[in-house]
């Protein structure tokens, strides 16, 4: 028995904490991404596996180098946020992306997207999307060249011509050809590495909701807004506008709604704020998809909403418990 009667540790209450740590959250996110990652390797070949490895390595190296340059301990790379960024960045790039471009994207994502703001938690924009946006401006040709995946599920109906390189959204926007829903769900289409198998993203999203890693308000408001805003023109003129279900599952919307718009660091604090973000991002997605120069708008929509998140956060504080009644009470007296 230790008879020590002094020298106890002094800290403020509370003296217990929930099990989740930043690290745990980040790796949970990665785990929910696994099905989609595995499927992407399945669809696009082992090359993609190499891309994941390369991206994770370059993100971690970039982060630890910048940390070291600042004289901080490089332990922080263990928090897993760089891994999440790396995986998400690969998922929004085309499968034929060159390794050089990928590394450039990773460096930009981690350095300009996160570290210059002060590292994890301080960044304003989603680092993976910063990387992706940078690449799409840096290598516009490479980033819009798509290959069709291997036909894994041969029993499913064949989609558009296997020779075609356009993504479903580009095909719909510029040529009026609509991909069939099963293909959208199971990845039988051209597109970014991680976005083609919507069903696996949905599964990951359900897992994250169950683990309370993300808020349903964000996902529902974003997807709901896109559904409604694409549904209205479709009802008016089904010939020129794709149906809303197509829009939900085509392109990067599902990936964006589940994994990008729900990034804790760059989205609003409160549930009301989340809804505002979701509706805003959804509207921008539709505007860009239907009227803009790019067939896909998820990346830009989320980046733009990231930019206004500080303003949303400023004006959407929760009302303190009892605030409303206080006013009503005063009014009554």
């Amino acid at each position, binding site marked *: 028995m230790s008879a020590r009667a002094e020298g106890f540790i002094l800290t403020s209450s509370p003296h217990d904490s929930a099990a989740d740590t930043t690290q745990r959250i980040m790796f949970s996110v990665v785990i929910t991404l696994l099905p989609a990652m595995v499927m992407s390797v399945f669809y696009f070949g082992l090359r993609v596996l190499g891309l994941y490895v390369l991206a994770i390595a370059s993100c971690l190296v970039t982060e630890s180098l910048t940390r070291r340059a600042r004289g*901080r301990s490089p332990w922080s790379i263990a928090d897993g946020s760089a891994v999440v960024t790396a995986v998400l960045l690969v998922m929004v790039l085309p499968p034929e992306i060159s390794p050089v471009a990928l590394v450039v994207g990773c460096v930009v994502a981690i350095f*300009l997207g996160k570290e*210059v703001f002060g590292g994890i938690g301080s960044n304003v924009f989603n680092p993976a999307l910063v990387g992706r946006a*940078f690449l799409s401006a840096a*290598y516009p040709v490479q980033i819009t060249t798509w290959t069709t995946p291997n036909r894994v599920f041969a029993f499913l109906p064949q989609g558009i011509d296997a020779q075609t390189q356009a993504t479903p959204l580009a095909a719909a926007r510029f040529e009026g050809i609509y991909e069939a829903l099963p293909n959208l769900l199971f990845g039988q289409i051209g597109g970014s590495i991680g976005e083609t198998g919507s069903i696996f993203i949905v599964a990951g999203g359900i897992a994250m909701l169950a683990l309370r890693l993300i808020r349903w308000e964000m996902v529902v408001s974003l997807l709901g807004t896109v559904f409604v805003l694409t549904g209205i023109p479709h009802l008016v003129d089904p010939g020129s506008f794709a149906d809303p279900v197509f829009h939900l599952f085509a392109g990067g919307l599902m990936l964006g709604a589940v994994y990008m718009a729900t990034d804790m660091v760059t989205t609003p604090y409160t549930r009301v704020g989340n809804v505002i973000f979701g509706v805003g991002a959804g509207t921008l997605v539709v505007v860009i998809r239907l009227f803009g120069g790019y067939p896909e708008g998820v990346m830009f929509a989320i980046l733009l909403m990231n930019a206004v998140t500080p303003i949303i956060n400023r004006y959407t504080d929760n009302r303190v418990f009892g605030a409303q009644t206080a006013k009503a009470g005063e009014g009554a007296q």
Partner: protein
Amino acid sequence: MATRSITYEFAKGLIKNNPVFVQVLGMCPVLAVTTSVVNGLGMGMATSFVLVSAALIGSLIKPLVPSEVRIPVYAVVIATFVTIADLVLRAFFPPLSASLGPYVPLIVVNCVIMGRIEAFATRNGPGPAVSDALGMGAGFTAALMVLGAVREVLGSGAFFGIELFGEGFTPLLVMILPAGAFLTLGVLMAIFNALKEGSHTVLIKAESKAEA
């Protein structure tokens, strides 16, 4: 007022008071026209010309100008020289004039110029005034050229229009887009700050912070 050597007045504009990296002034042309070294050089020269001429005139006419109208008078003087520079560019360097586009007239509202006239030229003789203006102009031009060089090399794979890399190099187009301008200048500015601070103190600070 302590008088300092003319060389000093010239040199301080290059690093110590660099109008771009230290004072963060005259940003529009810095960002807009630096897609290549040549453009940067051209804009830098044009600005320097206006700066020097206006500084000279400013220091000469100073005793004549009542302080109430000094700002409009200098504005007119600057705008006059800018127009001259613009006409000269159009007459003798048409391609450069085309690529600088509407950013030449914006020299009129470049804070660097009005600032130097007000702060320095009108308080010193023509000699120091011109020297100061030359220094500032040189600092401005140098900054523009550095930025232009980085953007041209990365964004077009060339330097002064000469291709640097072989077929294998895919230029980073973003560098010659607006976003690239902002990002490059931001990073360059940080590098400038870090160098200026002196790597030594940065390291010591970081070390003691890491320990705490």
